[in-house]
């Protein structure tokens, strides 16, 4: 008997193994490698090994000696010849503005001449080499393992003494964006609950033929392409769109007074609410249809008014559905990308859009990875809560 149990365990595990291996290779490994970039940035360390070794003994205050200038000059020259200077210059520049052009200019001017004094030649090419902050930027960007992307993602940085301090006020953008994303997610979740609860109640308490039809009205948008639904909102809400045309036609607003309802936060909120509403209605409906209507009739027969019966009998039994729907909508909201990117304009962007910006435009992949890691931690914590309260196996509508 013990043997056959062991055999059953092995067989069950073996059945899951192909998918575990597949997800491990095609999903978890890429995810892990991406997140590792938030703390691991070896490019500068690999490109300027000799300079960084010499800077190990530097006091961080006085200007480094002529030997250090020479070693850095030679390393920059050879990077320039290998055409791999740009990446290094960009990374150093993230720690000290102006270093990109300084490095490129220095390498270009050193190229033809073998200077008598490297120090003088480099300072002549870019005066910033005369300042210790340039060398600190080289030293710090050469850290192979670093927490600076996480600090940056939390609007923090290290000052010259190495203490963690807040970024200058004009550069603090990430915490407020994270806060805005959480706030938007809360608002969307609450609106979805307010809109979705009565609808789920109606579907659950209709006769079967009608409830199937009403359920279809939820399922059709649920399964309709996100891009289709986002396009519909553009058609409806844009300045020359259907709703503004209607408002002008009935005289509620003038041709000049068309209301900007899209390419801003309003667009993000309206479109995301409509897109996520089925995720609220379906779990609520799943719970409500298990509540026998006779319970409410019994409460009424015992003298409870409808509000009393609802609050004491019905509502408490729907709490699991509320938890499931709310957590689901919230989890999906904080990671939302497509809709804000298409209808959010400048003010309606969320944290995912900033991650995409750093992936595709600024190419600051370390920062993108740090922001992604913070977002992922939020999502995973919420999902663990969801799993504890609701259970994955109950997510049958997907």
């Amino acid at each position, binding site marked *: 008997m013990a043997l056959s*149990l062991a055999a059953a365990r092995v*067989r069950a595990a*073996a*059945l*899951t193994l192909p*998918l*575990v291996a*597949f*997800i*491990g290779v*095609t*999903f*978890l490994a*890429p*995810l892990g*490698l*991406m997140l590792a*970039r938030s703390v691991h940035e070896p490019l500068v360390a690999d490109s300027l090994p000799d300079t960084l070794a010499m800077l190990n003994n530097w006091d961080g205050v006085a200007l480094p000696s002529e030997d250090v200038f020479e070693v850095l000059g030679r390393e920059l020259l050879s990077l320039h010849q290998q055409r791999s200077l740009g990446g290094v210059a960009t990374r150093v520049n993230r720690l000290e503005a102006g270093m990109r052009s300084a490095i490129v200019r220095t390498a270009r001017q050193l190229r033809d001449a073998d200077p008598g004094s490297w120090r003088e030649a480099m300072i002549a090419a870019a005066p910033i080499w005369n300042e210790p902050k340039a060398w600190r930027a080289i030293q710090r960007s050469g850290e192979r393992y670093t927490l600076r992307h996480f600090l940056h993602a939390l609007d923090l940085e290290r000052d010259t003494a190495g203490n963690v301090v807040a970024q200058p006020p004009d550069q603090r953008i990430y915490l407020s964006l994270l806060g805005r994303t959480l706030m938007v997610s809360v608002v969307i979740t609450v609106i979805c609950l307010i*809109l*979705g609860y009565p609808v789920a109640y*109606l579907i659950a308490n209709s006769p079967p033929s009608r409830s199937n039809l009403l359920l*279809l009205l939820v*399922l*059709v*948008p649920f399964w*309709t*392409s*996100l891009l*289709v*639904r986002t*396009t*519909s909102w*553009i*058609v*409806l809400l844009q300045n*020359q*769109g*259907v709703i503004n045309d209607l408002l002008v036609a009935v005289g509620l607003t003038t041709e000049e007074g068309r209301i900007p309802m899209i390419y801003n936060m309003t667009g993000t909120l309206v479109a995301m609410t*409509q897109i996520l*509403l089925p995720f609220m209605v379906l779990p609520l409906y799943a719970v409500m249809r298990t509540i026998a209507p006779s319970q409410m009739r019994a409460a009424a027969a015992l*003298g409870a008014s*409808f509000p009393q019966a609802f609050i004491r009998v019905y509502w408490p039994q729907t709490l699991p559905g509320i938890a499931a729907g709310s957590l689901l909508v919230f989890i999906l909201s904080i*990671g*939302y*990308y*497509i809709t804000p990117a*298409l209808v959010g304009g400048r003010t309606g962007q969320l944290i*995912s859009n900033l*991650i995409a910006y750093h*992936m595709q435009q600024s190419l600051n992949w370390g920062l*993108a990875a740090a922001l*992604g890691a913070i*977002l*992922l931690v939020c*999502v995973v914590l919420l999902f663990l809560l969801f*799993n504890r309260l609701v259970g*994955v*196996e109950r997510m*049958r509508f*997907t």
Partner: protein
Amino acid sequence: MTSKTATFSFGDRLARWLHLAFCAAVFVFLIAPMLVVIPLSFNAEPYFTFSEGMLALDADAYSLRWYRSVVEDEEWRLALTNSLFIGLAAAAIATILGVLAALGLASPAMPGRALVTGLLISPMITPIIISAAGMFFFYSNLGLSQTHLSLILAHAALGTPFVVITVTATLAGFDRNLTRAAASLGAGPFAAFRRIQLPLIAPGVIAGALFAFAASFDEVVTVLFLGGLEQRTIPRQMWAGIREQISPEILAVATFLVAFVLVLLGVVEYLRKRGGQSPVGQ
């Protein structure tokens, strides 16, 4: 006593009408945006709003020109081919691996079920931008970015949770005595699976496969990160259309996609009736 149990007091009726009106408004909010797109896709003018002729139901204000230009456009045709090819291949991989895993997860002897389930459905809960960024680096390092293969593998990974969840749910209602009976009658484990278990869980398997296909068919972010011009899919073309040159062609494609969903849901509903339990809407 009688006054409290009477169901048709004025207050009750008012509350009931308010409830119905509220729900009607919510249904309009859910459905109307898609319904507006359909007539506009027949607009004879290159605008996204109703012309006076359309409102007057003038037949000349309507035309099939946007449908014609989509059908005649090389790029849209390539996009449809790509979407179907990538979607079918990804759904096939996701279904085979997902069904096997669900069979393991549904076994009472499965060790570490919670952890394995969590890992297997992680592609569904991870924000798509993070998944796509990770895959971008991964497939670039392998030299596979801008290939159909990378998109098929990516979409298969994103689609497996749908198969795992749907099939696991179907298996929960499966009577294990049936496979034992088959075994006692001399069937090997594979024969018992193929002849007894698979036919009974088939509705769940097909629904899971459809969902995996639909997930791939609607996916745009990994296509943005992994795909090149040769891998453009329908959602990718729509994305470009919305962002770059907005043309009513998109509305024609959108109408086609809404029709596609109605067919898909019809199939699922048919399976539900046949299989006796719903993989959706529960």
